Every structure is written in structure tokens, then in C-alpha cells.
């Protein structure tokens, strides 16, 4: 076979190059469509809500008069619910993830559990709300409280935390585990001194992504019966008298940001739509801030770790 003339080769290469350029442009357009739509939505929300984003908006209770209404009870409620969610989902999720990855024997039973943990992450959130209504609100008698809401959202994000924990643990090389074992470490020492600290970045990321999902959830919270109009704050957790800590707030009724938003958008008056947009901006900023925190923490922790 004689080699192809150089001119032919060049033509061929030019044709290949053309496809490369076509794809670059198509890909860029695809990316821009997604980004611009989101950016447009967010800008519109921000512009609409901006006039209402005053300090009073954060320190006022909801009101029948749109201009006087604020999100005080909603953001405090969101914060406290997230606190309960974090305090229950982190220990449960991390312990379950560590058990599944490091301790559980590898057999058909654990394989089924594994698959189902993944499936749980896809269960619609309103199902969790129904479950929680029966279990926490009525069966355990927690009522329509911050505790019930926090636990419901904890259930919701538990699969996310478990899956993130397992993936983070799996990233620790076997040779590091063997190094610990070879020095006489027990499995618990290997896990607690090495594997968990080294995967803390990944675990934290999973936890925060779970929490930022939970903070925007509306359906399950409505299902368990959160109130939409709350003109008082929960009992403060810190008191003047011994023992200075109070857990009464766990049993208090509450509302959260997305529910407050939902309430306002369902009002006929135009002025309340502005409030809804402003609350939406606050919710979005909180979510983005949590994601940013996740990225920063992961960067901080991973910087130290080289395999």
C-alpha cells in the first residue's frame, strides 16, 4: 500500500477538526441554556424581593399587612429544625455508613440493605411526611413540633449521609488500613484513628448537601402539620436559671421558611408576592452558603491528605 498523499491527510484532519469545533459550540450552548435560565430566575427573584429585604423583614413576625410582615419566626424555626436534623442525622448516618462499609460481612443480606439504602434516597419526601405523622406526631406523641419536623427531615437525609459516608470511607486506600492493622490496631482503632478522620471531608460534604436539601423541604413539614402563621418565637434554649438550658423549644409549634413562602404565594394580594420573593432569596442564599461551606471544608481537610 502506498502512503496517502499529504494533501489528502490534511483534508481528513481538517474534517476531524471541524467536528471538534462543532461539538465545542454545541456543548457551550447547552451549558449556557442551563446556566442562563437559572441565573435569570434568580435575578428576577432578587430584583422582585430586594425592596422587602430590610432589617425589619428579618425581625418581624408575619402579619396581615404585607408591608409589616417578616420572616422572624420562619428563619428561627428553620434554624432550630436544622439543628435537630443535624444532631440526629449525622451520628445515625455516619455510624450506619461506617458499619456497612467497615464492619458488615459482605453477603446477600448486606447487599440487599445496600441497594435499599440507595432506594430510600429516591423516596418522595411526602411519604416521609406521612410516616412521620403517624410515628413521631401520634405514636411517640411529639406533636406538631420542632422535634417532629427535625426528625422527619433527618430520616429524609439519612440515606444521603449514609451513601456519602460510605463513598468517603471507600476512598481511603487499603494500604493505609493495613498499615494501621500491622501496628496492632483493632478495627475500631483503625476506623476511629484513621479512616473516619481521613474521610471527614467527604462525610461533611454529604452532611451539608443533605442539610441544604432538608432546609428547602416543604411537603413533609406540611404533612406533619406545621403552622403557617406563627407570631411568636419558641421557648429560648438558654434560660436565666439553673441548669441554664431548656429543651422546651423542641415541643413548640413552628414554621419554616419554605412554608412561610408557600403561605405568601397563596395570598391574592400582590404585595405578599414581594414578601415571598424576598423569603425565597433568603432561602436560596442560605442553601448556597451551606454548599459553599461544604466546598471550603472539603478543600481544607483534603489539602492535608495525600496518598
Amino acid at each position: 500500500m502506498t502512503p496517502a498523499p499529504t494533501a489528502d491527510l490534511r483534508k481528513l484532519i481538517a474534517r476531524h477538526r471541524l467536528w471538534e469545533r462543532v461539538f465545542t459550540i454545541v456543548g457551550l450552548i447547552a451549558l449556557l441554556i442551563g446556566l442562563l435560565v437559572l441565573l435569570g430566575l434568580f435575578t428576577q427573584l432578587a430584583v422582585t424581593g430586594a425592596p422587602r429585604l430590610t432589617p425589619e423583614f428579618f425581625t418581624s413576625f408575619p402579619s396581615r399587612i404585607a408591608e409589616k410582615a417578616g420572616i422572624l419566626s420562619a428563619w428561627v424555626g428553620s434554624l432550630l429544625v436544622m439543628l435537630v436534623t443535624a444532631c440526629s442525622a449525622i451520628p445515625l448516618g455516619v455510624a450506619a455508613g461506617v458499619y456497612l462499609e467497615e464492619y458488615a460481612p459482605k453477603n446477600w443480606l448486606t447487599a440487599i440493605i445496600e441497594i435499599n439504602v440507595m432506594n430510600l434516597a429516591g423516596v418522595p419526601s411526602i411519604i416521609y411526611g406521612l410516616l412521620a405523622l403517624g410515628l413521631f406526631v401520634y405514636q411517640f406523641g411529639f406533636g406538631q413540633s420542632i422535634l417532629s419536623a427535625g426528625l422527619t427531615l433527618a430520616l429524609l437525609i439519612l440515606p444521603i449521609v449514609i451513601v456519602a459516608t460510605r463513598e468517603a470511607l471507600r476512598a481511603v486506600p487499603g494500604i493505609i488500613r493495613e498499615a494501621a492493622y500491622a501496628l496492632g490496631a483493632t478495627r475500631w482503632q483503625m476506623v476511629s484513628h484513621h479512616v473516619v478522620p481521613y474521610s471527614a471531608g467527604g462525610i461533611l460534604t454529604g452532611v451539608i448537601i443533605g442539610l441544604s436539601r432538608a432546609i428547602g423541604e416543604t411537603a413533609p413539614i406540611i404533612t406533619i402539620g406545621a403552622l403557617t402563621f406563627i407570631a411568636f418565637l419558641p421557648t429560648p434554649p438558654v434560660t436565666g436559671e439553673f441548669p441554664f438550658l431548656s429543651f422546651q423549644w423542641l415541643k413548640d409549634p413552628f414554621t419554616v421558611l419554605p412554608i412561610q413562602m408557600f403561605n405568601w404565594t397563596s395570598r391574592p394580594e400582590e404585595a405578599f408576592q414581594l414578601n415571598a420573593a424576598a423569603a425565597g432569596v433568603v432561602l436560596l442564599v442560605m442553601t448556597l452558603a451551606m454548599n459553599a461551606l461544604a466546598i471550603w471544608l472539603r478543600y481544607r481537610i483534603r489539602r492535608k491528605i495525600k496518598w
Partner: protein
Amino acid sequence: MVELATNIFDAPGSEPATAALKAESRHLNFHYGAFHALKDISLPVHDHSITALIGPSGCGKSTFLRCFNRMHDLYPGNRYQGEIVLYPDNVDILAPSVDPIEVRMRISMVFQKPNPFPKSIFENVAYGLKVRGITQRDLVETKVEQALRGAALWNEVKDRLNELAGNLSGGQQQRLCIARALAIDPELILFDEPTSALDPIATASIEELMLELKEQVAILIVTHNMQQAARVSDHTAFLYMGEVIEFNDTKKLFTMPDKKQTEDYITGRFG
């Protein structure tokens, strides 16, 4: 070849130090599930000397080494038969009644690739002590310094003990792993191809180090590098397909091997 060893075992302490036994495998068989990886291996490990295990890839030399600290216990489906007796206690460390953690506290290991923990240099060396519950700060500091000196690393790292181990060069990291293995005062150190990831200069320093260490401890080393076995070891075992073909003095094995198969291997005719 092993008869010599059994004689010494019968009269412990009466023989010259050079011939004293540190450990001995007796009719050791090992299975990975259905795969019979080690077949009836009987080998002595002499104290204060270096015993090298050579053979082609997959011959079972690493598998054999990892029996000595019960590393195989970590994974399901592995099965030992036979004994590995540790002297002078005269205990079978493969016995089910012996806790593998106790074995690993007495016999330490250096791996093929440097595997320091992503912690400080100090914490790496001190980890074996931490596992043993030794917490007195001054004692730990003394031990860490001794171990780092023992691994010929002290002068390079004494001013930066709190730096991350990952910042060290490959050769330094492997010496750090040796220091980590030394800090627990092991009776026997297992080296699993310790220089396969290192450049020739780092390799030379690790070899030199092993020659110094054998004054204090027994060393069992797996190497795929026959020159390395010839340079550092006192005794060499040639393994092939899970069996010991020949065990001999290193000099004898590399110059006048008893077995034709050994000669073929060391002259590069196969493997």
C-alpha cells in the same frame, strides 16, 4: 535443609547467637478460598540475620510473609494449616487461640509502597505506641527519636517533626515507615518488597539500613530483585508455585545452588 534448624530448637541457648532461631514455619499450607497458595512450607528464620524470599511473581512469597503477622485474617475465605513457631516463647502464632493483634504488636511490617498516615511525622512514628496505650509524653518522644535514628532519618526530620509525612520524598517516607515499624520494639520485621517503588539511591540507603537493623532484630524480606537478595541477605529461600524449592546460605544459593531449578531461576532462564 530444615533439619539443621530443628536441632537448634531442641537445645535452645546452647548454640552460637548467629544460629539462633527467631521463628520457623512448619508444614505451612495456605488457601485463598479454593486456591492452594502455599504448599507445605517449612523454613527457619534466624535471629539477627536477614532471610530473603525470592521467586517469580505469584510464587507465594508475599503470601508467606503475610502469614507472619496474620495479615490474612483481615480478609474472609483465607485458611492456614500448619504452624509458625516464634522463639524463644515457642508459641505457634497461627494457633486460633493466639490473638492476631498480639502477633502484630510483636512482629511489624514494612510494605511495598511507602504508606505513611496523612498525619505528622511524629504521629506516624508514635502510632504503634498509641495503640499500646503508651501516653507519657517524654517516653513517647524518646521512643520516636530512637526509632527515627534507627531508621537513619532523625537528622533529616528532627526540625520538622510536626510536618505532614506526605511532604517527605519517597525514600524518606519508606524510612519513616521503617521507623514506625521500629518504634514498637519488634522482634521480627517483615519487609514486603520495600524498595520496589524507590529509585536506586533510596534503595541503597534502605539496604544499608537493613544491614544495620539486623544487629537488633530478625528480618524477613520478600524481594523480586535477586541482586538485592544477594547483597543484603544471609539466607535465601527460593519459592516456586507455592513450594520451597531451595533454602540455603545466600552465598551458596547464588553460587552453587543445590537444585537445578534454582540455578535456572537465578541465571535468568525462567521467571
